[in-house]
């Protein structure tokens, strides 16, 4: 399988339960999260989640669309970081 590390920058409403929903969508597919960083933005009501995941690129692109469908997710951007060895 053609797996790459993909980085998502996910801007979400700073509310309880949001982190769990976002992570659940990724881990529920059996993907392992390699790195996760969550912090506030200048706008205190918005958090940024930076997530690195190893997985199939097409599937991860689909995950972005599904993340955007989430009620508390404001925007998601994703890009390929590097190919897995």
């Amino acid at each position, binding site marked *: 399988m053609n797996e790459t590390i993909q980085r998502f920058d996910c801007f979400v409403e700073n509310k309880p339960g949001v982190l769990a929903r976002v992570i659940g969508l990724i881990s529920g597919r059996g993907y392992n999260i390699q790195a996760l960083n969550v912090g506030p933005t200048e706008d205190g009501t918005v958090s940024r989640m930076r997530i690195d995941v190893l997985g199939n690129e097409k599937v991860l692109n689909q995950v972005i*669309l599904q993340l955007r*469908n*989430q009620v508390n997710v404001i925007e998601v951007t994703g890009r390929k970081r590097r190919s897995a060895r």
Partner: protein
Amino acid sequence: MKTIRERTGAVALVEALEKAGTEVLFGYPGGAVIDIFDSLKDAKFRFVLGRHEQGCAHMADGYARSSGKVGVCLVTSGPGATNVVTGLGTAYLDGVPMVMITGQVPLAQIGTDAFQEADMSGISRAVTKHSFLVQSADEIPETVAQAFYIATHGKPGPVVIDIPKNCQQALTKAQYPERVNLRAYHPEYTARPQQIARFAKLLNEAKRPVIYAGGGAIAAFASGDLTALARKAQIPVATTLMGLGAFDQRDPLSLGMAGMHGAPCANYAIDEADLIVAMGVRFSDRVTGKISKYAKKAKIVHIDCNPAEVDKNVTVHLGIVADVRDVIANVNSRVKANEHPEWLARIAQWKQDYPISYQPLHPGVIMPQQAIEAINKVSDGEAIVVTDVGQQQMWAAQYVTHRHPRRFLTSGGMGTMGFGIPAAIGAALARPDLKTIAICGDGGAQMTFEEVVVAVLEKLPITIVVINNGCLGMVRQWQELFYKKNYSHTILKEKGLPYLPDFVKLAKAHGAAAYRVIDPAKLESTMKKAINAKRTTLVEVIVDPDANVYPMIPGGKSVKEMIFK
């Protein structure tokens, strides 16, 4: 200025549900919702007490599917909440709008493994569009408004509101909002004019077009526009299982259902088409079979309200993320009236050469397909038909004449056994003007049979038909075809013993009228009597246990590998 009345969170909840348009609330009480139940006495909506929370959830689901409104359900914390998980998943996969209110232990006790505590927002995450854990009574009215909004906007689906007991008891002045304002959720998309223009051009140029409509077309109330488009441009229409009813099957342009157990002409037409107009479908593996061989000759236009659907399973030529009805209505005005005589003649030939059909296997034994035909004859394509899951579901899909949207209710995505009886109760409450018929297998009927009492007590004249083949037929069929007839634990009727339970006695014990049919000659007259009865009636039809669902494209195979018997 009007003074704002202070009342408990529980009363505020009931008020909010009324404001949101609730007509029927399905539910089951318990300690964590006793305050809400206490407030129901003044409610303007009807309350229906189920007998198991799973049943309550499917009732709300059946209500929603048949009416297009939100199904609303209220259950207690812990086991009440975990019992609705299957109902949520069923609604989630089929895009059914539902608001599920669950009680929760008081906020101060959350996380302590308190009595009847379950992390419902956690448990429900994978089977809901969204879940709310209410933090104070003040949040209740607005949360209800938001939940109804989320359930109905974008692809519809279930939403959980988990309300701790102390929030139900606390006082609040909070009012139901005039407008819902969700900062990050704006699922309304519109087609760009260039997309509509390209779509119209593709339609005008196509020689062998097929419309392929799914549950999303029904959810978007697009049947009328779809029909207008099909007739104007003379495009044949296939549907998915979930799309049955989106297009009148008495129309000569109807191809019937596509997919694993679909009509050969629908599958052949998709295989030969040069243009597939897919609306509100997911291209599920049950429909496409082997994806690399799917619709190879066609350009695919995919219209869906959900951006995550387009290009998910098949790569499309033109993807339009927008409301299905808007797009079709829009393109209708740009499409030329057309005829495709050669294409339609070819389709007519397929219909003639490969009808969906069956042969009796043993003389004097009722074939299950015959039972569905008898139901169809009496109901004449007008009744709401609700199915359970398994062979009987596929026979109902194949042998009922589907004429109207929201009258064939089936658990397509999840395939939940036990859906039929409670969903029929919900449908009958939503549409008292129509007859409602539940078609169940002997296996599935046993999963939620307790709800028959509810139909009786609510005086619902529904008909429950149990297609009794003495086995878990659909699994048995796979074992016959793909597992060398090793019928491992799928035969429910023990040889030499009468079938247990006795469905006729069981139905009578639940207060329903009941008949058993064994003789093919009595089939139609019994169905007539049952369907026209003014009370809850069960008909157990003893059918040939060896009957299989055909045609069939085995999982992962292509149209070329369709088997007919």
